[in-house]
């Protein structure tokens, strides 16, 4: 880090809790002008929370922020923006129905003295800015018509050219192709040389090492390591991220796991060369009866899209899904369900009916098996009671509205709805995300039991622990493509992270 200068931004003793859970504990952080500062850490380590505090998104916290040595307190993102701090958030936040030019100038459209937008000037300037960034699009195109990666680039461009002195980029490269990443890096270096302070968050440690001057590692809401990028390595950073120390060992699967050898069980589902726009690229794999296939990758690696292709929610551009050797082209999720595929998305909200009782949530996916025309409430309830019993859903009251259950129990209901008539293939996205240890273990045990009964299971997760604790075989996705398969060999969290 540059010596002998005072930082443009300095944070001291930042602590932030969300509903009793501490996301940040006494973090100090300094950013200098003309520096690119890389941040790494696992999901939930506190990187994004800290950056959102800087950008004024979370106004409630304890600690001090000093800008140019003067103490400041941002009450909103607007305040932070006015002070010259701009952030590209992890989730795309563009206006897809507006033109490219309007997105570039969002909120700052050039106007004439009557307050009317100067369209021609806006289009011209937007075109020039984007061209500097190596993007060649018609500024009047509707942004939503462009590929996601390009939309992300345009959002980044907007922030980079906003004139901010401090720029925060949260996971900016997840949807970008290698040449686009290069262009981004060239621009970032130029801005740095012009004196801008840049924070760069990424799961891609190679990217962090290449672009950063300084790297800071977060773990469990604490800053655990800060180093010059030139003086460290990928392995050292991964070790700092996971923590080889005593504190987290039993929880993190940092130790090696030996995957079982592949038996010769029958293949149930085969994905053959699935491709979808920019998110899934030529992905092929097989899942056997009684096998749990883990699909691991960082956020934005295409696994959510892949899962939706398998369940007929999204139509792939090319490639086929075969079940028991039969080619299937699912026109709808209903068709996928009838073909024996069960799906639990990463968001419980997207899966469950919070204002309906538990038994209706459990019976919904099998209703056509238990009743032709008329409902059979007694049968529905008995099915629900059996599932509640088997999966130990608490409280064990099937008449209770689902919304009154805890997150972990809701997740069990999301599983339960598929199990009264077992499917052939179970696709689980992030099955243990945001759950406490007890509920996590329950879900892990349920999945193992189902697998032992001969179900083919696909677990997709961005959490290495989840995949390691469940999978018999693991494939790693990176930018939409399969980059590594672990089968019948020793694997550990380090190795997974290394591969992704």
């Amino acid at each position: 880090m540059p010596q002998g200068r005072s930082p443009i931004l300095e944070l001291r003793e930042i602590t932030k809790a969300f509903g009793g859970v501490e996301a940040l504990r006494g973090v100090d952080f300094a950013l200098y002008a003309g520096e690119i500062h890389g941040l790494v850490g696992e999901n939930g380590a506190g990187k994004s929370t800290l950056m959102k505090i800087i950008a004024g998104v979370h106004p409630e916290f304890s600690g001090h922020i000093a800008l140019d040595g003067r103490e400041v307190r941002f009450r909103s993102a607007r305040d932070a923006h006015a002070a010259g701090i701009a952030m590209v958030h992890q989730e795309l936040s563009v206006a897809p129905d507006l033109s490219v030019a309007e997105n570039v100038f969002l909120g700052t459209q050039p106007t004439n003295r009557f307050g009317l937008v100067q369209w021609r000037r806006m289009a011209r300037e937007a075109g020039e800015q984007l061209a500097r960034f190596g993007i060649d699009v018609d500024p009047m195109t509707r942004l939503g018509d462009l590929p996601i990666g390009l939309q992300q680039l345009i959002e980044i461009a907007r922030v980079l050219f906003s004139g901010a002195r401090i720029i925060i980029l949260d996971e900016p490269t997840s949807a970008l192709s290698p040449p686009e990443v290069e262009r981004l890096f060239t621009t970032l270096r130029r801005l740095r040389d012009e004196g801008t302070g840049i924070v760069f968050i990424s799961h891609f440690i190679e990217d962090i090492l290449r672009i950063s001057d300084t790297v800071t590692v977060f773990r469990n809401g604490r800053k655990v390591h800060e180093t010059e990028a030139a003086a460290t390595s990928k392995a050292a950073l991964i070790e700092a991220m996971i923590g080889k120390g005593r504190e987290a060992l039993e929880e993190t699967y940092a130790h090696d796991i030996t995957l079982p050898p592949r038996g010769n069980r029958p293949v149930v589902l085969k994905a053959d060369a699935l491709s979808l726009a920019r998110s899934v690229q030529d992905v092929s794999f097989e899942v056997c009866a009684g096998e749990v296939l883990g699909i691991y990758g960082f956020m934005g690696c295409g696994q959510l899209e892949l899962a939706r292709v398998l369940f007929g929610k999204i139509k792939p551009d090319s490639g086929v899904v075969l079940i028991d050797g039969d080619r299937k082209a699912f026109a709808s999720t209903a068709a996928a369900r009838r073909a024996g595929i069960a799906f639990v998305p990463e968001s419980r909200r997207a899966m469950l009916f919070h204002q309906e009782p538990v038994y209706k949530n459990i019976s919904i996916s099998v209703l056509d098996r238990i009743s032709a025309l008329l409902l059979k409430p007694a049968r529905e309830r008995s099915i629900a009671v059996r599932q509640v019993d088997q999966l130990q859903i608490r409280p064990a009251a099937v008449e209770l509205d689902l919304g009154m259950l805890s997150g972990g129990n809701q997740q069990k209901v999301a599983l339960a709805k598929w199990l009264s008539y077992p499917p052939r293939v179970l696709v689980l996205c992030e099955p243990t995300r945001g759950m406490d240890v007890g509920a996590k273990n329950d879900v892990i045990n349920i999945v193992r039991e189902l697998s032992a009964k001969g179900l083919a299971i696909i677990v997709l997760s961005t959490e290495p622990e989840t995949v390691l604790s469940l999978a018999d075989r693991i494939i790693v996705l990176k930018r939409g493509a399969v980059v590594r398969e672990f089968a019948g060999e020793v694997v550990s969290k380090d190795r997974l992270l290394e591969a992704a």
Partner: protein
Amino acid sequence: MATSEGVTASVHRGGQRSAAAILRSQMRNIAPFLTLICLSGFFAIASPSFATLDNLGNILTQVSVTGIIAVGLTFVILCAEIDLSIAAIANVTGIAVAYFTLQESYVNIANVPLPGWAAILLSLALCALLGLVNALGLTVIGIPSFIMTLAMMQIAAGISALLVRGQIAYKVPDLVTTLGSGSIGGIPWIVIVAAVMLLAGHLVLTYTRFGRYVYMVGGNREAAEYSGLNVKLILGSVMVISAVCSGIAGMLGVAHFGSAQQNEFDTYLLDSIAAVVVGGTSLFGGRGGIGNTIVGLFVLGVLNNGLDHVNIDSFLKILIRGLILLAALVINVYAQRLRARAAE
């Protein structure tokens, strides 16, 4: 019927939840019922001619056509969609059934007289077809129902105009005449038809698999899709159901009014939507039902009828109706919020 679902639900929950919480979560069912009681009480005191058996019969007859349309509309609103073409489809179906019936010689319409059963079947096919177009526009092309049915409103009005060309037809098949304007044992057939259709709608929504799907799609469409339901088929079906209910109301309405002409049903669009929403069926889908719609029908019926019994400036009545509808909408949206909070 209005609160049957609510009552069973609260009985099961009684142990865990306070009375206030139950009250809050049942606001949607309680508020319209209270409105109905208050309105009836007010008019009974204000006018001696209101609270009579004869007048009850009047109210029932007056809400019958709206009631038949509201059956189908309840399905649509439960799915968090809307159908603005109901009145126009009622109108065109009523005109069609007259068009296929032999008219008196002084009626100057180039019509196509057919046997009564054929006229009825063709008219039913017409409204089902228009509903199917709504369904395809919504599900296959992806046009929001608000816009799709707005277009259908014009299309149906256009077909009506072409069929009658500004003329008025009077004759409809005998069966339709009987059901629309006849009575049995002092009870008008149209009231019986409305009651039977409301009952059928309630049974379908409460006791069939399809009815459950309607509630689930309305409650959380994304979750319904991720549960492997054929959401498009369900949405398409409710649009067809709505159109057919409107068509039946249109045929009987023509017989009831004694004539078939352009723009005859215009007021039924707002009345039907008002009946469903005033009754407490959620505009956001998934909550409510035919029981609510019946309460809503009575609120509207009592209001319209009662205002005729008291001495009020007839121009003021329109404003009063508007204000009552606004109040119901406020309660509808507010009830949704209270319930969401109660669920947390």
